[in-house]
């Protein structure tokens, strides 16, 4: 393998990640705006985004702190939202588990929804990729995403409440995630998993600490796995 292959893998990742600029920027800016209105200064808002890089968990933590929830509840709820990251980590391990430890550490830090969704689809479609190419592709996908997450958090925190949230900015994340789901629905089992997970998430929305998300995700995964098992047995 030569460095040209790595370069091309990195560039492919960059190209696949670039469209997410359109949604990461507004989403990060919304976080900055909300952080400012909650009384955080620019450094604190930026520290949040650099330490966590996970929108949904950051919004959850901010909201609960404003509601004066106990610190342990804030941490537990926000980490529950991020439990999906452990599932991503497990799901990528067959493809990236052979990398040196420091590279696995780097992947872990940058493991955001968009990079996971792009990576897993790529690795499943192209099983011949080398470990180094997979790493290069992954780093390509996060290059346009993570720096913008930090940068637009700062812009939002500086600009503050001059931006109105009534314009549909709140919906940037759901649209972006939906855009990721469509292409991932490759078989009936994938569709069933998504359907079961969606319906369960609505049914279990009443559970505290965002546990509904975890219950729904597990039910969806079980549905997908069971249908795959039956179709293989048939």
């Amino acid at each position, binding site marked *: 393998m030569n460095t040209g292959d790595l370069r091309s893998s990195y560039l492919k990742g960059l190209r696949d990640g670039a469209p997410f600029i359109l949604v990461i920027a507004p989403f990060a800016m919304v976080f900055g705006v909300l952080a400012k209105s909650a009384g955080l200064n620019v450094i604190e808002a930026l520290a949040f985004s650099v330490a966590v890089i996970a929108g949904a968990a950051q919004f959850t*933590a901010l909201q609960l702190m404003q509601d004066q929830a106990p610190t342990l509840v804030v941490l537990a709820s926000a980490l529950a939202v991020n439990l999906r*990251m452990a599932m991503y980590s497990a799901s990528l391990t067959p493809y990236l588990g052979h990398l040196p430890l420091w590279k696995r550490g780097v992947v872990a830090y940058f493991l955001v929804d968009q990079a996971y969704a792009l990576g897993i689809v790529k690795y499943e479609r192209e099983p011949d990729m080398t470990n180094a190419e997979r790493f290069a592709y992954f780093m390509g996908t996060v290059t346009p995403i993570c720096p913008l997450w930090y940068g637009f958090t700062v812009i939002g925190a500086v600009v503050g409440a001059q931006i109105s949230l009534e314009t549909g900015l709140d919906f940037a994340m759901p649209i972006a995630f939906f855009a990721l789901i469509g292409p991932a629905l490759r078989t009936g089992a994938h569709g069933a998993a998504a359907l079961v997970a969606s319906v369960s998430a609505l049914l279990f929305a009443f559970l505290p600490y965002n546990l509904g998300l975890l219950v729904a995700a597990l039910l969806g995964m079980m549905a997908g796995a069971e249908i795959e098992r039956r179709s293989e047995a048939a």
Partner: protein
Amino acid sequence: MIDRTELWIVIIGLGLGSFGLRFAFLGLVGDRPIPAWLMRHLRYTAVSVLPALIAPLIVFPPANDGQPEPVRLTAAAVALAVGFYFKNPLLAMLFGAVTLVGGLYWFG
């Protein structure tokens, strides 16, 4: 007002905890084999977690006080359908965003 000590405990704790969750399998399992039944479940991680994360946001959008709202429902359906048929996330996002912004402009 958020207490400063609590804020930094949350920022650092959430940062370390999130990294721990992301590192859990990649770092600790590494190249040891993963059982087939577990792999079969993990293949459906993305298509389960992402819909579960956004389904409540789409049906009960916080910006509309948690009430279902036709423009947002339509925009979500458009993004999903375009993504499914064209297998292209960018196209799906564009169509979804145009539906949302256009819809809110006309009916909002």
